[in-house]
């Protein structure tokens, strides 16, 4: 079916329900907004999110953008639910398309009863339940600038979903007031154009009705914000980084937050400089961090090894994306784990922590700073693109349970009682007392070369053996300080699921849906990935007949580490893998488990 591009009336391709039809009530809704980069798809998602939150709903949004500033297909998905959610809904209920490509891409994800609204200015739709409105033409004519078409689209969606007109308008006021009176007035005009267009289609108004929820106490945030806030309250005061998707927001938040706390944030000339700047600052006694993604991590590998050898406490947030090489900068993957576990030449201790929600990003960043400081070793926070950048409702960040662990930091009074100060002293637990430069009366020698207790370069054989044992010993002595795993589902179920990072969202949803089909599962979410928590994996795997390891990579990297750690359970492990650049949807997990039963 083709439609003239110049038409100005809204045309439905489906019979319009009679006005008396009661609205379909939804407790869990998903809207996908697609168009060209610069069409304002993210703005529509943001406006809907603000409205849904006024209803007290839990919200989760994801975006699919290209690595370019304007142009190219871009889409945003928003889900709102009465229940807590941490993933995108498998089916799209409403598709808002600004062009034909968005219709093509979005229709494959559309649920059986899905509705399409589209901008008919230059597009036609050959889809059931599609309603075209010439938003760009209407807004261009009446407001003067077609760019406000996204606000008109929000207006049309508000009619379809039976939004309260006053609250709908409040959302626009809240979003655009700070842009100035003119911008607000134009957006309000565009909103009304969209609303009137939708109201002119008989039966479209209040077709669906979204239920209210009780999530009013929630905040809206992203994992990268959790990392930045955790860094501040965890005493982090020096950050150096290099812009890279999807890690850059960590640096941007810290540029806003840290100056008030005598903190310093520097954008370095490259990742080599960034990692070495934080090494210098950590040596001087500051709590430090950098954030990066795969390509930057490859460059930082040299510095991380140096910190491991020289026993310098640093934290690296790896916001993983699709690799190798430049890969797909804006897409999601969990394929850095194998590199992180083995990163660097030679052997040195490192700890890898894996938060799964923004709140865990906040808490585990504090843990990472404490662990690094106490054990004087590199600590890596492993995130993934969906966790870093997808916005989600979350319980508010607070200071409950936040505490500082400074390790064996020597004060002037401590030093007065000592006869010798050795920065690499051999100790029973592998942690050496340290006095940062500037401490009166003492000085430190720190080196990445093999060294003796004083920090002098050494090739002595016995010293080498003792120093290796001291450093590597941290991998054992630090274990009680590492974040423990979490368990969900039915404790005695014979089917196990293992997953970390943002995969917990679709896994938790899959567990609920499997339960309704009578399939009982238990889910283990490790929060420390290195050293591999064998003490948690062994009893968990002991209790199940089969365990599905859910990961966004090709080779099943965590499953391989599990096999290496608890090889006697190897026959129970099955991998569920997805590496197309997108997050799991719950059916990806439900299907193989159901087939396995």
């Amino acid at each position, binding site marked *: 079916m083709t439609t003239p591009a110049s038409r100005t009336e809204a045309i439905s391709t489906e019979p319009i329900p009679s006005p008396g039809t009661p609205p379909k009530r939804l407790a869990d809704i998903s809207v996908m907004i697609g168009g060209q980069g610069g069409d304002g798809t993210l703005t529509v998602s943001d406006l809907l999110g603000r409205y849904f939150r006024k209803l007290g709903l839990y919200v989760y949004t994801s975006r699919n953008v290209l690595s370019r500033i304007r142009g190219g297909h871009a889409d945003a998905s928003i889900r709102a639910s009465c229940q807590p959610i941490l993933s995108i809904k498998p089916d799209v209920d409403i598709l808002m398309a600004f062009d034909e490509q968005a219709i093509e891409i979005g229709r494959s994800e559309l649920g059986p009863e899905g509705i399409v609204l589209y901008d008919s200015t230059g597009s036609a739709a050959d889809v059931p339940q599609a309603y075209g409105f010439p938003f760009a033409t209407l807004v261009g004519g009446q407001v003067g600038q077609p760019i406000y078409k996204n606000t008109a689209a929000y207006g049309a969606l508000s009619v379809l979903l039976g939004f309260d007109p006053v609250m709908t308008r409040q959302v626009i006021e809240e979003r655009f007031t700070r842009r100035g009176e003119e911008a607000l007035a134009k957006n309000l005009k565009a909103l009304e154009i969209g609303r009137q267009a939708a109201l002119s289609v008989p039966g479209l108004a209040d077709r669906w009705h979204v239920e209210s929820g009780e999530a009013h106490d929630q905040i809206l945030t992203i994992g990268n914000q959790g990392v930045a806030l955790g860094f501040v309250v965890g005493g982090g005061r020096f950050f150096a980084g290099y812009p890279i998707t999807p890690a850059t927001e960590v640096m941007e938040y810290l540029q806003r937050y840290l100056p008030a706390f*005598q903190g310093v944030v520097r954008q370095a000339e490259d990742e080599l400089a960034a990692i070495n700047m934080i090494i210098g600052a950590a040596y001087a006694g500051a709590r430090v961090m950098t954030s990066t993604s795969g390509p930057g991590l490859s460059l930082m590998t040299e510095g991380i090894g140096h910190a491991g050898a020289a026993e310098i406490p640093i934290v690296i947030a790896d916001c993983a994306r699709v690799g190798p090489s430049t890969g797909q900068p804006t897409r999601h993957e969990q394929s850095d784990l194998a590199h992180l576990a083995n990163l660097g030449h030679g052997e040195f201790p490192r700890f890898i922590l894996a938060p799964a929600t923004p709140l865990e990003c906040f808490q585990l960043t504090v843990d990472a700073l404490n662990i690094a400081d106490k054990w004087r070793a590199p600590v890596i926070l492993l995130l993934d693109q969906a966790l870093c950048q997808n916005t989600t409702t979350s319980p508010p960040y607070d200071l409950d349970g936040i505490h*500082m662990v400074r390790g064996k930091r020597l004060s002037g009074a401590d030093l007065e009682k000592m006869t010798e100060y050795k920065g690499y002293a051999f100790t029973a637990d592998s942690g050496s007392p340290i006095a940062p430069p500037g401490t009166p009366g003492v000085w430190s020698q720190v080196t990445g070369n093999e060294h003796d207790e004083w920090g002098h370069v050494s090739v002595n054989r016995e010293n080498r053996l003792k120093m290796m044992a001291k450093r590597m010993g941290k991998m054992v002595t630090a274990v009680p300080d590492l974040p423990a795993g979490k368990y969900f589902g039915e404790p005695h179920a014979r089917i196990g699921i293992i997953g970390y990072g943002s995969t917990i969202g679709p896994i938790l949803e899959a567990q609920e849906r499997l339960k309704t089909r009578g399939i009982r599962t238990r889910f283990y979410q490790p929060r420390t990935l290195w050293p591999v928590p064998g003490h948690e994996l062994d009893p968990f795997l002991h209790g199940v007949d089969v365990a599905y390891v859910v990961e966004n990579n090709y080779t099943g990297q965590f499953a391989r580490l599990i096999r290496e750690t608890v090889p006697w359970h190897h026959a129970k492990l099955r991998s569920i893998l997805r590496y197309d650049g997108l997050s799991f949807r719950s059916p990806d997990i439900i299907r193989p488990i159901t087939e396995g039963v």
Partner: protein
Amino acid sequence: MVQSAKPTQPIWCPGCGDFALLACVKKAAAELKIPTHELVLVGGIGCSGSIHNFLEINGLHALHGRLLAQAVGVKLANPNLTVFAAGGDGDGYAIGMGHFMHAFKKNVSILYIVMNNETYGLTKGQPSPTSQIGFEGNIEKPFDAILTALSIPAPNFIARTFSGDPKTLTAVLKEALEFNRAHRGFAFIEDLSPCVTYNDTYKLWRERVVDVSKLPGYDASDRKAMFRLCMEAMDSGKIPIGVMHRPPEGAPLDPALETRVLPAGALGPARADIEIEPNRAAYAKLLHSVA
């Protein structure tokens, strides 16, 4: 008093130019009465980069080529420290070139000393970025750090010295350290420090060095004049030494980076109180700002 790491014996060959530099660094620091616990030397990788082991000060032995990035981190974390970075010409001008260029631009108040011997000594005499054509088969034109430094418009202190002239070397080191300690910005000294084993240039350099301050038209506050002076000296087969740039006295300066990113009198990242209690109210306000 508690015993800290004692200096070890230098690994350098007898006659190495680095001995003169080491002696002058000790002399300059002592004459300026800088407390040893406030001195940090960030060493590179190579013969010259081991210098931190031979001094009673804080030493940070960096990765090859990365000493400037580490030194910048040290200074920004605790601006109260006096921070040197010291390494060789391979470290600074080959593997560390990116950081070298940016150090001038960043303008953090640290002193960077390159001991230039025109070869990779520790790996036994390969050509370096400053090697002359013909040295060990080198067919690439040598790089000149002073001309490069002069080309970056930042208010840095720039000098070239010669290990064969320790008196001038000490005086230049003192001026550079005072420049740093006044938070006036980045100071760079290239010290011509011959490798007696693989590239013994003492005699050649003694004949060819020319003190730029004795040349007509010398004005260290005028970059254009100094660039021309250096080019002309080099064209006539000479090696210009001396202070190549110092920002004009009393002229308005771009403040050093550490004074731009931290408020006056701030303790900075390494010394700020990071315990929860004193920060509780400010933290709570920050966390509540997320809605």
